[in-house]
């Protein structure tokens, strides 16, 4: 007969969420959600409400006619903004901003997570979208892509509930000797994606030559001069 443990599958119910929250933070099976404000209301039958944090990355108007995902993305595509609790951020119609959860979250080793837009929020044509999946043992404030798909600007108030975190069981054991990926380890603010330059990614496929757009100027003698050698990808 299967043990009770092995029968666990599907979505975490409230009781299990509470049990996991009661384990030490560094226990592999422990769940951390902090600060868990208004705990009674935050915990639902099968989910936990997450609130909007105070830091954002807003899309920048680029000086170029294109955007190339590469090593410069971290500094080229976004503008940082801080909106303290009690103030609001205006998201223009049909625009997306990056925000993050107010809560710092650490998932158990045997759970994956998903962030869904709170239904009340979704009905205002705000969608927390596109990359809602969270891997086991992830830790950090979750970066949220928040899209205003309506025809009017919408105000976002940091500190208000915006999403629901759902936890799902997976069959997996914690391996204490396995190193953890460092890319998204413990972020507190929304983070720009850490792209490599395209030729570095494509080299793995055996592609030896990659077309790139080079940024530069033509001097008085008609010679091309690179303006920024960080984009020279020879």
């Amino acid at each position, binding site marked *: 007969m299967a043990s009770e443990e092995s029968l666990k599958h599907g979505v975490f119910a409230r009781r299990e969420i509470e049990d996991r*929250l*009661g*384990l*030490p*933070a*560094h226990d592999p099976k422990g769940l*951390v959600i*902090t*600060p*868990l*404000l*208004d705990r009674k209301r935050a915990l639902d039958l099968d989910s936990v409400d997450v609130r909007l944090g105070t830091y954002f990355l807003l899309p920048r108007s680029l000086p170029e006619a294109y955007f190339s995902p590469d090593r410069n993305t971290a500094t080229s595509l976004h503008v*940082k*903004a*801080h*909106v*303290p609790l009690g*103030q609001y951020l205006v998201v223009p119609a049909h625009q997306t901003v990056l925000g993050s959860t107010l809560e*710092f979250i*650490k998932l158990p080793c045997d759970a994956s997570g998903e962030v869904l837009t709170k239904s009340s929020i979704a009905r205002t044509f705000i969608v927390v979208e596109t990359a809602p999946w969270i891997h086991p043992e992830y*830790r*950090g*404030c979750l970066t949220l892509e928040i899209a205003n798909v309506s025809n009017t600007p919408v105000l976002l108030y940091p500190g208000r509930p915006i999403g629901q975190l759902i936890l799902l069981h997976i069959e997996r054991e914690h391996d204490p000797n396995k*190193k*953890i*990926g*460092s890319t998204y*380890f*413990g*972020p*507190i*603010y929304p983070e720009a994606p850490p792209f490599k330059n395209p030729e570095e990614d494509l080299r793995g496929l055996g592609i030896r030559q990659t077309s790139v757009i080079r940024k530069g100027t033509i001097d008085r003698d008609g010679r091309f001069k690179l303006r920024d050698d960080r984009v020279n990808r020879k």
Partner: protein
Amino acid sequence: MPSPQNSLIHEATSVFRLVESIDRYVAEHENLFAYTDATQDFFSDVHTGAAATKGSVAELIRKLSQTPERAELRHQRELLIHKGHWRTLHTYIKPATDAHTLNLPLPLIRMATDDLRTTPGMSEIAIVVLLTPELMFYHNMPQSHFDSERVFVEVPYSQGPSFFASLIIYHELGHYVFEKLKMDQASRAFVDLADAQEQAFAQRLGPALPSASLSSWAKGRLDAWTKEIFCDLFALRHLGPAFSFTLIDFLALIGLMEEETVSTFDQEHPAAALRFREQMTRLDKDGWWAHVSDLPSEHVELMKRLARKNESDYIFEFQNTGIPVFVEAFLSIVPSIHALVVAITPHSPAAAEDFGRRRQEIEECLLHGIVPSKLLADGTTLSPKPVSMINAAYCFYLTRLPELMKKLENQEDWNLEHRKNWVERLEAWTMKGIEDAQLLAQSADDG
């Protein structure tokens, strides 16, 4: 030949324009960035002041246009006073607008404000941070026409976002507190300290000083040194050993300072050896030292080494001549500085105790990349005190960063870029922990 009336209108326009451009500059930045409440209040006062000055200048010229023959010297003086005030204000505006919330360790500023407000008679104090091009932290004491309930602290612009380095702010707040105590003369302990200073001067220095100017200079040295030790201990009472560690880092004492330099007093500062001896003494009395004395860190070893220096090794030179009597006079004042700091700061041993109990668990959280704002103890969750998080994070920074990096893919602890990234992340976790604790306390207060 220009008429006096025209000259006045010319000058009034210039004042009007200066005020308006400062006012607009502030408004533009307020639209772009968020600021702390204290800075926002400062800016509101700038707007109010700008409207008042512009109104006053316009009224002066309007009256003058009705009676042009009465363009008097007093009108010119009035304009000069306005201009002088706004020239002074001008120097504060740019550093204040630079200090928006993206450039500051915000939870630390909030915590420092709360801590400062526990000082008797300072419950309404607000901290306005200024980002300065200097690589130094300062307390900026404005002229009297500024609001005395506002503390201006200058932070090097490159250090603004750095949490650990910004702990030095507490030392600068000490300067404000000292000046305020001096001004108010309401604290018994401060009066006792002033008496100790007088006595030290009268018994050890006064008789040997031939002139009034030398006496005044000598008193100035004792006062400056007193203030520095006071500020160190004030910061220490609020922050615990993390302050000493950050001061060591800030003064670049590890491995860089020569033996003689650490024992030398300059005109403004007592010798580093004495400063750290007094810090160690205070930490010991407040119950902190027992928790960090065995930390396998160069910082702790350095403090022990400095504290062991003989008083007879302390040097104060004036015009290349050693004057040990100054040092002796000052050493007799030091116990009164401790007494003053203890009298005006909250009971630190409670914080030391919390740190002692929670340190290991906070460090475990940090080792696993988890913000340490909720810990588990005896089956219930609790929030450690922010000061415990700060000290545990600093201990972790000094001793366990490589351990964290070893748990992560492709991170080498000798790689400075990697290491810098993890120091920044450690600081971010600490700040988030403090912010969470502040939020949890606030929501508990609201029921």
